[in-house]
């Protein structure tokens, strides 16, 4: 089992993803738009989400062993549903909510 901290390729990280996400404007309605439709413990499949999602939405809960989904970080790219189409149901947030790019 690998989580994002023990993957084999670590490149220099001077600005953390948390700091990057801090630059983004969100307008949340606090309703999740992401659902795990597969087994949330099926780490063979879910594992890559932890480092492939560019907003670090997905992490393994070390206590329960389940997938934690921090949907309010989502930058709405759709990578997760491309990578795990049978496990992640990702839809657009309700109209008008979610990210609001100032630059784009």
């Amino acid at each position, binding site marked *: 089992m690998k989580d994002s901290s023990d993957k084999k390729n670590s490149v*220099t990280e001077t600005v953390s993803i948390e700091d990057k996400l801090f630059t983004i404007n969100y307008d949340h309605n606090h309703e999740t738009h992401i659902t795990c439709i597969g087994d949330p413990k099926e780490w063979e499949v879910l594992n890559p989400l932890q480092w492939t999602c560019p907003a670090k939405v997905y992490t393994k809960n070390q206590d329960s062993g389940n997938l934690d989904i921090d949907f309010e970080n989502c930058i709405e790219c759709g990578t997760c549903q491309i990578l795990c189409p049978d496990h992640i149901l990702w839809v657009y947030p309700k109209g*008008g909510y979610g990210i609001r790019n100032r630059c784009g």
Partner: protein
Amino acid sequence: MNFDVIIIGAGAAGNAAAITLAKGGAKVLQIERGKFPGEKNLMGGIIYSSSLEELVPDFWKNAPIERPITEQNYWVSDKKTVTKLGYSDDAFKAKTEAPAHAYTVLRSEFDKWMAGEAKKHGAMLLPATVVLDLIVEEGKVVGVVTDRPNGEIRAPLVISGEGVNAFVSWKRNFGNKPKPDEVALVVKEVIELPEDVIEDRFQISANEGASYEIFGDITKGCLGYAFLYTNRKTVSIGVGSLVADFANNEIASYELLEHVKNHKSIKPFLKGGKTIEYAGHLIPEGGYKKLPTLVADGFLMSGDAALMVNAVHREGSNFAFVSGRLAGEVALEAIKNKDFSSNFLNAYRKKLEDSFILKDLRSYEDVFPFFRKRRDILNDYPQLISYAAKSLLTVDGTPKGKKKKNMVKGVLKMKSPARIVKDLYNLLKVLGK
């Protein structure tokens, strides 16, 4: 209210279709999931004037464009070295009463402006609304279902400008969700710097701009490249690769972006800059072989939703502008003839075939599969180029004749002549189509 056409999305393709249709007098409804057009959208990003002038002839006088791209640079990076090639041309500059060849834009402002152009000609915009499905009756698309209360809206024709995540089209089997090796993830930061600092560092004047695309070791074995573009008071820096490569190589895109930002040849450009926005987006790279339906009864697809991207040449916005315009033109004819059958709408496919869009997509159909299969080319050849440059450029008392011989010997040791010839042949074969 009755509409002739519903357009899903107010991005590059949707706005192009909306401008074309509204100018032609059609009753257009454009549905956008953002509160304002542009706030969900992202690209590198560069627009090409020729494709936008066809829609808004004087766009460069009013559009929120950043900088003309007058100098294009291509770098090949190895672990510790960089080989640089650049092309600067005054012909790319703006002239009296003529725009520059290409401009950087920031999509949030740009798309808002472009949707405003459609509105000016009478298109109606319904923002903050997600289209959830198409209404299909007797095999014909006759409207959309939105996430508004009583959210059905009907029209005899629907144009999809949904973008890369074309959920509505996929739901009705007009195209399929791409596989992880058919779509690229790009992450980007917009970094603020004073205008004069940008001009000094990039050695450009107020009416010039530069683009850098960096290949090789910089992507840590992922198939893709990094980019750096000058805007007016910001620069855009990003990196992209196939979703499959980030997943399989266990590389986080945001960490790779830090690696790019800290690269010795890039860092000096960014020094002291402040990141004002981080963002990520997908690019459909399935190409010609994976093209969706494009045309059905009462339905047309354009832009990223229709995989209209030539990733090798960083072209996407021009494909979206032109495909959106062509969809709009065919839709106007369909409205005039009151015929929304796929048979009639097939004129759209014909127009795409006659334009650069399907010609380019067809001629590049083997390029991506080739690189996907031969990732080694993108690793080995940068090393080879670096070795050759180093051998030739190091002055150490060795006579030049011997140096050249040593260089050839060294290169051939890294790759056999037969291998090089074969690779070159295969590369030229897929590129020369």
